[in-house]
């Protein structure tokens, strides 16, 4: 069966209550109806990722949601079953080599081979592939990441290997950084140092960043766009500022026998209801939500923005009611 046929037989998707497309602007990464099947298992379903130029785009999702598959399609490591991916307006499949020349990539898995090579020689080897390689910056990064250049790659720990890849990804100052779990395996100190190096890099070099991580709180101040993938579907995509405005935690006092439990439907991501108090995380216009709550008899005490970490948790685990 062809990919197109498989797509047509896929169950109809329920529209997400959240925005899944950005309004205008130049895009560094754009995928349209990206679909990927592994055998009969759909790993991606009609994903339309839009990463604006110059943005730091945070891609979140549970393990196996399809984040790494999306990233690998952008680099033509994996071919989609349907749809297309473009990086800087170049089809990632047809112009794979040029796309990769413009991407600094840190993979999730580090079993890359070349274990016999010393770190210093690997950096030299890598530099030959990237004409824009900045030697002095590579040395600076090697110092910043405390790389042991005389060590063989196969003797490095996971965290050390991650730092080598980060140095290789940054040293040619690519227009697009694709970081798949860049701080995975790093100790807290090195994690902090890595984020500092990344922030300095972004300040010095105009770069778009597509970042996939489970450590959302680390990038809270860095990210300006967010995409949420769940079960292979992009269920939310928006500027973080819009998320902060639209996703609020409402606390309200409710009378005995309050009948508003079913208000707002899927827009309520978290419900924490006690006898005379509710604490709901709701997506929508603040005035409208507060108004409807008031009309139902509830007295809204406050509506507060939530942290990116909490917002991500709410987006990834919707409809969780805690009574």
């Amino acid at each position: 069966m062809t990919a197109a046929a498989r797509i047509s037989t896929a169950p109809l998707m329920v529209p997400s209550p959240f925005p899944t497309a950005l309004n205008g602007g130049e895009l560094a990464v754009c995928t349209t109806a990206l679909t990927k099947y592994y055998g009969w298992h759909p790993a991606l379903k009609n994903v339309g990722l839009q990463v604006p130029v110059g943005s730091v785009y945070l891609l979140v999702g549970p393990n196996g949601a399809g984040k790494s598959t999306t990233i690998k399609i952008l680099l033509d490591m994996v071919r989609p079953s349907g749809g297309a991916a473009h990086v800087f307006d170049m089809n990632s499949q047809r112009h794979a080599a040029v796309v990769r020349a413009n991407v600094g990539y840190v993979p999730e898995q580090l079993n890359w081979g070349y274990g016999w090579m010393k770190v210093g020689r690997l950096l030299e080897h890598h530099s030959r592939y990237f004409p824009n390689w900045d030697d002095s910056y590579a040395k600076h990064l090697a110092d910043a990441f405390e790389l042991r250049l005389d060590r063989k790659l196969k003797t490095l720990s996971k965290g050390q290997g991650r730092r080598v890849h980060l140095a290789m990804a940054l040293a040619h100052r690519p227009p697009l950084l694709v970081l798949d779990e860049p701080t995975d395996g790093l100790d807290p100190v090195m994690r902090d140092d890595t984020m500092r190096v990344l922030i300095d890099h972004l300040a010095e070099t105009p770069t778009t960043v597509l970042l996939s991580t489970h450590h959302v709180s680390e990038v809270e101040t860095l990210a300006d766009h967010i995409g949420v993938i769940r079960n292979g579907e992009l269920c939310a995509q928006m500027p973080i500022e819009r998320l902060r405005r639209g996703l609020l935690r409402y606390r309200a006092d409710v009378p005995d026998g309050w009948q508003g439990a079913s208000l707002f439907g899927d827009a309520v991501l978290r419900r924490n209801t006690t006898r005379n108090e509710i604490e709901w995380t709701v997506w929508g216009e603040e005035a409208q939500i507060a108004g409807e709550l008031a009309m139902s008899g509830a007295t809204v005490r406050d509506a507060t923005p939530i942290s990116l970490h909490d917002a991500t948790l709410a987006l990834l685990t919707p409809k969780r009611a805690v009574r």
Partner: protein
Amino acid sequence: MTAVPVASDAGSRKTVSRLHAAPAWTTIVLEQIRAVGLLARLAGLVVVGVGVMLSAVAVWNVWTLRTFNEAHPKHLLTYPDFTFIAEAGIVMVGIACLLPFMVWQDEDPTRRLYHWAMPVSRPAHALAKVFAGWFWLMCLTLVYLVWVAGLAGVTTLISGQPQPQSPTFRLWEWCVPFTSATVTYVLISAATVGARRPLVWIGGVITMFMGASLLLSKLGKKDAFEHFTRAVLNGTYGIATALGRVHFDDATQRASLPRADFWLGASAIWCAIGVAALLAVSCRHTEPL
């Protein structure tokens, strides 16, 4: 907190002008030659060490014989013959069998992420790496032939007895180790580039061949299969001819290579088969696990 450039800061034209170019293919080929040379350095040193040891043994042997012959002129012992014969190329065939496994070590088709993440098209990159291995194989073959010729020269000097080439030896036979090593290297490279478990595939093909032979003999159709097998293996343009197998000539009572045109034809055919297989597996889009 350091400011981060925002989306609206970057215009379309500005972005396009900032795009990086892919590297030149010559740079990649040269870097692969360097990298494979570095990888094979230790094995190369071992081979050179073995060569030095064998040379020492050969020189010591000839020196001892010369001392003995000078002391016993009535009981002369024969000196060993170190003149080049085409069968000596079998050493390079053996090395060519092993080299692809070294070139692609830790990089089976599902774990070639680093190779694939580079800004080069996948087929071109795979071929560049195969070419790098072939380059070093040819260098080693040249060194080997110089060593064989040098050994013959040195032992002649020591013994004082010239070692003339066989009258059936033809000058083009010096090229046979290069072609036989190339054919072997290309065929084995196709397996290592394309298969996750190349040894299983190579063994599988041999097993299938033997199984088919057994089955056809049970069915009473062994002759046709044997005819085919003989043509593929030992025929005029069979793989044995490409690998420099000698034929024993009843008339001259000497073992020699077939005619130059047979050798050239067989080498070209088997090399073309290997290159076609290599191109096919290089262009196949394998995905990481």
